[in-house]
């Protein structure tokens, strides 16, 4: 088990290098630092001196891969590639184009992101499983078919409408909670309820539908028939037989998402004005702050890979038959 995890972690390294090379290629080879300087400075102020200044200020005035002038080890280290890409491995994210320290920003913004994403995730799973179990109880009846139609309809509504509709109904018409905002002290829950609610409701369609297929797959197995034959109640079959067996596919789909919760939700955070990583990314994209985007790409891929490893580990926990080797 331990050896397996070590091997998986080692296997992650080439993937991270790949991610790194890809982002480097995207950001520095497709568009040269000069192009970036021009678009950052705006058309009016573009003079060769201004571009040089901008590049020097942000550390883009070095060669891409090899710096023969520097001599020694610095031939390799005094380059854009080393400074901007390799340093990410040491979690040294450097400064954003506007001069702020990215590492501090990321650590302070992680909290609000989690405060929204974690409840949404947990409540969402609970609600989805309950709804799906209820539908499975009425399988092969008009109620079941109707429910599936409703799920598909819910899936067909854009996430943006859920947010806008939720803000309109709950916050504007009923005036139950503030429309948006965030306050770290005091009544945080007041600001969190609506985003969590919107997140959960928006996820019901796809989530409950997926769980329903998982449960149905199990409900057609022989052991369910046996349980019914020996006189188990339907409820007991659902919770004691079907649910634990459906845990394995549920885990695969769900565990991989857990680390990504740190990243927060782009849309929810920006609509509700929550100062988390999601809105951080959105602001970076809108202001074309490539340094932040680069760092977030790196953090995101690490979290995804951690999620994959966690998924494998959770297999053994949910299903004793699975052995990792």
């Amino acid at each position, binding site marked *: 088990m331990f050896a397996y995890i070590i091997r998986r972690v080692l296997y992650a390294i*080439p*993937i991270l290098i*790949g*991610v790194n090379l*890809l*982002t480097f290629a*995207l*950001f520095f080879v*497709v*568009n040269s630092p000069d*192009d*970036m300087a*021009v*678009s950052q400075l705006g058309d009016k102020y573009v003079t060769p001196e201004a571009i040089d200044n901008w590049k020097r200020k942000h550390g883009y005035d070095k060669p891409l891969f090899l710096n023969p002038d520097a001599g020694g080890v610095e031939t390799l280290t005094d380059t854009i590639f080393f400074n901007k890409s390799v340093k990410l491995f040491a979690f040294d994210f450097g400064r954003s184009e506007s001069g702020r320290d990215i590492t501090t920003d990321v650590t302070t913004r992680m909290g609000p992101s989690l405060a929204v994403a974690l409840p949404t995730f947990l409540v969402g799973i609970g609600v989805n499983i309950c709804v799906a179990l209820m539908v499975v109880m009425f399988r092969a009846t008009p109620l079941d078919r109707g429910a599936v*139609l409703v799920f*598909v*309809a819910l*899936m*067909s*509504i*854009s*996430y*943006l*409408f859920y947010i*806008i509709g939720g*803000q*309109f109904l709950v916050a*504007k018409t009923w005036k139950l909670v503030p*429309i948006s905002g965030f306050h770290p002290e005091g009544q945080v829950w007041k600001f969190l309820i609506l985003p969590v609610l919107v997140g959960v409701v928006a996820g019901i369609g796809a989530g409950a539908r997926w769980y329903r297929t998982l449960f149905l797959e199990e409900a*057609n197995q022989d052991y369910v028939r046996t349980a019914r034959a020996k006189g188990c109640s339907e409820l007991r079959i659902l919770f004691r037989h079907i649910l634990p067996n459906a845990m394995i596919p549920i885990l695969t789909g769900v565990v991989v998402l857990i680390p*990504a919760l740190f*990243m927060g939700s*782009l*849309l929810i955070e920006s*609509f509700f004005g929550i100062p988390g990583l999601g809105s951080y*990314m*959105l602001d970076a*994209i*809108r202001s*074309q702050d*490539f340094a932040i*985007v680069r760092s*977030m*790409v790196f953090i*995101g*891929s690490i979290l*995804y*890979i951690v999620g994959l490893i966690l998924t494998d580990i959770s297999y053994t926990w949910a299903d004793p038959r699975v052995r990792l080797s």
Partner: protein
Amino acid sequence: MKPVLLWSDALIFLLVTALVLFFWRLRRDPQTRERWGEVFRSRLGMVTFTVIIAYVLVALLDSLHFRRALENPEGNSGGEVYYDNRVTSVLDVLSGGMGERFERTYSAPFALLSFEKQTIKDAAGNDIRDFPPLEHAGRHLDDPADKWPDVARKSAVGLGIGLLFSALLILPQWWWLRGSTYPWYASWAVQATLVSLAAWMVYLSRYYHILGTDLGGADVLYQSIKGIRTGVLLGTLATLVMLPIAVSLGVMAGYFKGWVDDVVQYLYTTLSSIPGILLIAASVLLFQVYIDLNPDFFDVGMEKADARFIALCFILGVTSWSSLCRLIRAETLKISQLGYVQAAHAFGVSHTRILARHILPNTVHIILITFVLDFSALVLAEAVLSYIGVGVDPSMGSWGNMINGARSELSRTPTIWWTLSGAFVFMFTLVLAANLFADLVRDAFDPRTSLRRAEA
């Protein structure tokens, strides 16, 4: 008149031709015909398919572009003909100039007066603050109180024309399809509804703004209709870009195994570990920098928007092939162990021939299911991308741009609900139809579900 061929126009017509040819070929395969038959024997399948086809038709009509010839100025007879700088599509002509009736700013559906007060002159010539009358709504009415009876009368006329058109459309089908066991009547009901609605919209929009106007005074209904092309094209073109990459890599990985498999697996794990939205955003931004730095590439403004649109399709396609690739690889691994592939090996059939004749045809169902499923996902993604600011060009009509522009309108008092409603209805109908159709296709083509049914 001078035809304009945008890149996306060419691609969409190419795609539709390819799809028609593809299905024409598939028709010969009895098993595939049986499965499609299963999809279309259900009423839901007929209804959703008709809705999707209607959307595709609108998109195609909106993809035939041209530039109007301008009237020659006085005294300049003959000689050179000048063309309008704006690009018009056949749909614009068919809609009867719905998009050319601009107001000053917001106005509610069927309103006669503007939504916001302005300084206007009253009958005596004094300046007063009041709601000015709209320029293109209810001008034919003598008495504003007569509005709703007039709307009802005009609606009856519009619907009557629509029903006439539907009869013309359906009667030949009815004649041609006598004795068919498929539930065509479901499709005809939808056709009649859609044609009547379209006729009603075109007729009534000459007298009123059916869905009101937006901040810039543009007709909301017209914008919602213009969004159809963007949604349909994005949903199909992005998948089209993704398919060859995913299929070729997946089949090769599953068939050749060894180092090819390792490389392909490495590629898609790397790609899927990057947060998709960031990768897309970064790529679009970088392309935007490229467009901005090379402005002389493009003739008309629309071509610039079109270039960005094509780039977006490419980027979405290139960044989203990993899941399909994974599925195809697994399926190929399974198939290449089967007896008939082994037999082909033993007979000395070449690798390319085995891949083309024995393996690829057996992965078609996966490709098909992915194509239909991805379509609705991409239409939804467009709205989100536009909100983030990396979607289609703001000058290009799309539901995402509409939502983005209107996202704070609901919180105004009085509420402006029509822009969002317009985008919502048009988008929801398409995505719902596509999702329901995708479910049916999956049920019919997925061997797992058909097996389960065979057992039952």
